[in-house]
């Protein structure tokens, strides 16, 4: 199986999927994935539901274990650990060490409803990173300002709109300073009029350039604006990949053309 890479990108590879397969029982959702993601790169994953795109990022967040193959993050195996030159399944300690470089924003926000906005953003920095309360609060306030919510710090998630909750979730993951940030259809649960404010925030963060991003989205205009590279997933395989211009503007396969056709009709 050939490796899907970004030929023009000479920055180091930060995420490397090697012969990764995922099956739930007999149902194979991902087949022989070989993918490199470079540092600072923004990769958009598009495709019909059930095509395997969510599985790709959930395995990287350690929410789903690959059936076969390996995933490397920043030069280290994620699901395996090398013991005397042999690969062994990773234990909890190893998983925690490597997954600290990854962060994720979810479709359903998944804020902690029993904590105020500021505590949502400081709980992990204090107890996982070991920051002092002052440092964590300082960092959290910066991030909440970045997503335009510095006036909401003392409120609770249920008091905010869906768009605001999702922006808090983005801030919460940014406070942890992950090297790779994953976005799982983060606007899919939002009312249409709230989608824009969330996408703007993500575009701003992307423009800063530092953070590597993998984004699953059904917003084609957004994918075109923000991504360096677009992957079209179909039936557990990367069916087409390239720059947004190649993939979204000039699709070659019939599958991709018909997939994109569904969006064009609604955007016309």
């Amino acid at each position, binding site marked *: 199986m050939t490796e899907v890479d970004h030929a023009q990108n000479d920055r180091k590879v930060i995420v490397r999927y090697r012969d990764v397969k995922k099956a739930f029982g007999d149902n194979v959702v991902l087949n022989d994935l070989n993918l490199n993601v470079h540092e600072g790169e923004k990769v958009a994953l598009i495709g019909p539901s059930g095509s395997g795109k969510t599985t790709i990022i959930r395995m990287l967040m350690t*929410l789903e274990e690959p059936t076969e193959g390996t995933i490397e993050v920043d030069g280290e195996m994620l699901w395996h650990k090398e013991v005397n030159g042999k690969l062994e399944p990773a234990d909890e300690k190893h998983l925690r060490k490597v997954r*600290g470089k990854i962060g994720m924003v979810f479709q359903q926000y*998944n*804020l*902690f*409803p*029993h904590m105020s906005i500021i505590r949502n953003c400081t709980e992990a920095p204090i*107890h996982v990173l070991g920051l002092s309360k002052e440092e964590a609060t300082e960092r959290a306030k910066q991030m909440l300002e970045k997503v335009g919510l510095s006036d909401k710090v003392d409120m*609770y998630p249920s*008091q905010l709109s869906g768009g605001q909750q999702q922006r808090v979730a983005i801030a919460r993951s940014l406070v942890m300073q992950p090297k790779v940030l994953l976005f799982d259809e983060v606007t899919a649960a939002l009312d249409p009029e709230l989608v824009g404010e969330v996408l703007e925030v993500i575009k701003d963060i992307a423009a800063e350039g530092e953070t590597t991003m993998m984004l699953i989205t059904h917003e084609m205009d957004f994918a075109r604006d923000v991504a360096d590279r677009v992957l079209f997933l179909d039936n557990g395989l990367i069916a087409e990949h390239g720059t947004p211009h190649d993939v979204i503007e000039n699709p070659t396969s019939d599958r991709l053309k018909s997939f994109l056709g569904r969006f064009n009709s609604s955007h016309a």
Partner: protein
Amino acid sequence: MFTNIDTFLPYILGGLSTTVQAFLFGAVLAYSIALVMGLARTSRLAIVRGFATVFVELFRGTSLLVQMFFFAYAFPSLMPFTVSAFVAGGLALGLNYGAYASEVVRGAVLAVPKGQTEAAISLNMSKFQTMRRVILPQAVRLMLPGLGNNAIELLKGTSLVYFISLADMTFNANILRSSNTSLSAQVEIYTYLLLTYFVLALPLVFLTRWLEKRASKGVSTV
């Protein structure tokens, strides 16, 4: 009717401290067991889950009264040590009601949406941190109505300690009955006893309501 309140009520209340002590002993044990066994039943380790399941079904599936008899009368000949009637009663209460309450704990923990655990993983929290900081605080809110109910049941269950000769309120009421055999005296004695249990249960009702209100902070404003 109700002419002997001056003598009957104080006599019944002479058992109050035994009732309250049995309740407190039982409650502390029951809630500790409920937490440990309830969490054990959600464990990913089959051996832990299996042990907890056997424990819960054993103590839930047998009679509280028989358990008290067992701890008070059978236990001493099986073990190299004896236990006082009070400890036997408290043990049976704690184990029995703990087994019931552990189901409340388990149900509440499982009812917290999976996305909460996933968010905690995405923030690299350990399993312990996830349970303590994310899952349990939300689960407690869901447990409170069930656990409050359980506490009231436990209070009423303490009346069974009279069978192992502990001088609680029910024990004293039955002594009164044996020396005051008129029908009107019987009505009087058991009316006082009923009312006393009811009054004792009231603080538990209000405590549960207060805790429920407190725990819903930030959650119920939708």
